[in-house]
């Protein structure tokens, strides 16, 4: 079997499967997500809400996700899974979660066009990240972007939507290129970008491909200032604090990322949270959006199960919809029709300390996974905070 299993038996505890890969191309995210889940479990336990976690590590192997989910749902008897990072893994696991009538708590930004009863989405879909990101970029940098992406559903769909947004804005997509998950040979894409001179670059690469690309863009900018971040930024919706350590120092400085949480978000809840993280994981530890969302997902799951008095998904969903749940991301409400959380939008700019400075924010946006337009609230003007 391609994964390790270890459970912590606690009597009458809430049983939650935790499904993350701590090795492979997105290992940095998986480790942070797992730590976030672990912290939530410890804090819940200390507060008298015992959680019995079943950790499974599929090591970024799609087949092992399926085996892992089956183990969690069938053998370990959990009704709830917090986890999966890539959309490929989520889509792989969903049919099993439906079969065993469980709930998957998915907490990463994704490409939308999904609203499954057996999934609670708290990571954000495009009207919560890509659309406000483009609202910010197009008036400031222009509407002639270059699109790069990882060669799977996330990259394809995000770039397809981006192309549609750009076409509707009367702009032109100057290029669209894909790289396999672990590919780091970015030179051909870079020379194409150098030649075409886009107004900005949308980066939907993940892991080492993304880091190599950002480093390459820095080399390009050193040769030609037209490619400095202030002139032609590289923007993404999935870059995190925990990854910045893996990028050559300074290489990503000034680039932009959209997320519903940054370590630097200034709220009383966040500063308190960060001191707890520092106490548990050491003072140098930056909280990434995936750490925060995995933490929030486990807490929300356990609290909803306890409030429902049962881990039956239908009872848990009913409990979820009715209330606004205090969380690290602000008060969380889950829409009863879409099963998606309303989420704030923050735009972060990478600073010299491997963190993000929040340069613009929007209050919580209701999710509109199929972009029907009917759920998008009249868009408040983006509040620029610096």
């Amino acid at each position, binding site marked *: 079997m391609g994964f390790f299993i270890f459970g912590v038996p606690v009597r009458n505890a809430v049983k939650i499967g935790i499904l993350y890969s701590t090795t492979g191309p997105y290992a940095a995210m998986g480790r942070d997500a797992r730590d976030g889940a672990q912290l939530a479990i410890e804090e819940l336990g200390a507060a008298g809400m015992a959680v019995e976690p079943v950790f499974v590590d599929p090591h970024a192997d799609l087949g092992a996700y399926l085996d892992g989910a089956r183990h969690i749902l069938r053998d370990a008897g959990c009704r709830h899974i917090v986890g999966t990072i890539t959309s490929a893994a989520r889509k792989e696991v969903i049919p099993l979660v439906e079969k065993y009538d469980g709930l998957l708590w998915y907490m990463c930004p994704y490409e939308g*066009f999904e*609203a*499954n*009863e057996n999934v609670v989405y708290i990571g954000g879909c495009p009207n919560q990240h890509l659309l406000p990101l483009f609202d910010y970029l197009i008036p400031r940098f222009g509407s002639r972007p270059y699109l790069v992406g990882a060669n799977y559903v996330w990259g394809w769909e995000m770039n*397809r939507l981006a192309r549609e947004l750009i076409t509707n804005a009367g702009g032109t997509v100057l290029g669209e290129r894909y790289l396999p998950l672990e590919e780091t040979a970015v030179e051909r894409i870079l020379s194409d970008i150098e030649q075409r001179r886009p107004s900005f670059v949308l980066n939907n690469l993940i892991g080492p491909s993304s880091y190599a690309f950002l480093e390459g863009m820095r080399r390009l900018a050193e040769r030609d200032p037209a490619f400095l971040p202030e002139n032609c930024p590289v923007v993404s919706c999935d870059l995190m604090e925990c990854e910045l350590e893996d990028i050559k120092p300074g290489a990503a400085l000034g680039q932009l990322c959209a997320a519903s949480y940054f370590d630097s978000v200034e709220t009383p809840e966040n500063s308190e949270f960060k001191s707890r993280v520092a106490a548990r994981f050491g003072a140098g530890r930056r909280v990434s959006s995936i750490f925060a969302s995995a933490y929030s997902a486990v807490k929300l799951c356990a609290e909803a199960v306890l409030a429902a008095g049962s881990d039956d998904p239908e009872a848990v969903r009913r409990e979820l919809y009715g209330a606004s749940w205090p969380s690290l991301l602000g008060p969380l409400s889950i829409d009863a029709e879409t099963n998606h959380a309303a989420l704030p939008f923050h735009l972060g700019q990478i600073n010299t300390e491997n963190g993000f400075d929040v340069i613009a924010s929007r209050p919580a946006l209701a999710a509109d*996974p*199929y*972009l*029907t337009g*009917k759920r998008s609230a009249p868009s408040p003007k983006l509040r620029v905070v610096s």
Partner: protein
Amino acid sequence: MRETPNFAGWSVTVLHREDSNTERLLRQLRLLGLKATMQWKPITTSHLPDMVIVDADQGFDDLLPWGGDLPTIPVAALLGSEAPGRIAWALKQGASAIIAKPVAASAVYPALVMALSIHEERKAAAAHAVHLEERLRLRPIVHAAVRKIAERHQVDDDRAYGILRRSAMSRRMPMEQLAASILGGVEPLPEAS
């Protein structure tokens, strides 16, 4: 590039008896932005929705008003059975997508997109066929006009056909129409060029 299909504001009628399948289906239709109604009686041409989803397991012939002709709106079929007769029934109603029962939430949007897209393609193909049939029907008229031009200008049929075609293009009218006008004496014979 195809635009992302968006069904917000569309009306859809689900022809099905109420059960757990329709509950999930209606939930998904609502969140896709459609206004869904459900009934288990025939729909009438005077009250057509934008789209119809019909139960092919239990469906009977009068449920849909187009009696085997090309439907005027996109049709998707709900199907739990594998019985060839029920599949044939769905095809006869003009269904261009199937939503398998038990209904999976993720099956609904793709089926709507397929049903709409195939419906549009069929409509376009049918209109194209009508257009071609009309042109075929008028071929003898074109041929007669070509003969007339060939005799007048003492050229072969190919040259004559070229003259007629150029002349129709410069007047921005179909060749068949120009040919009929020439034969009827409404238009003078085009000059050879």
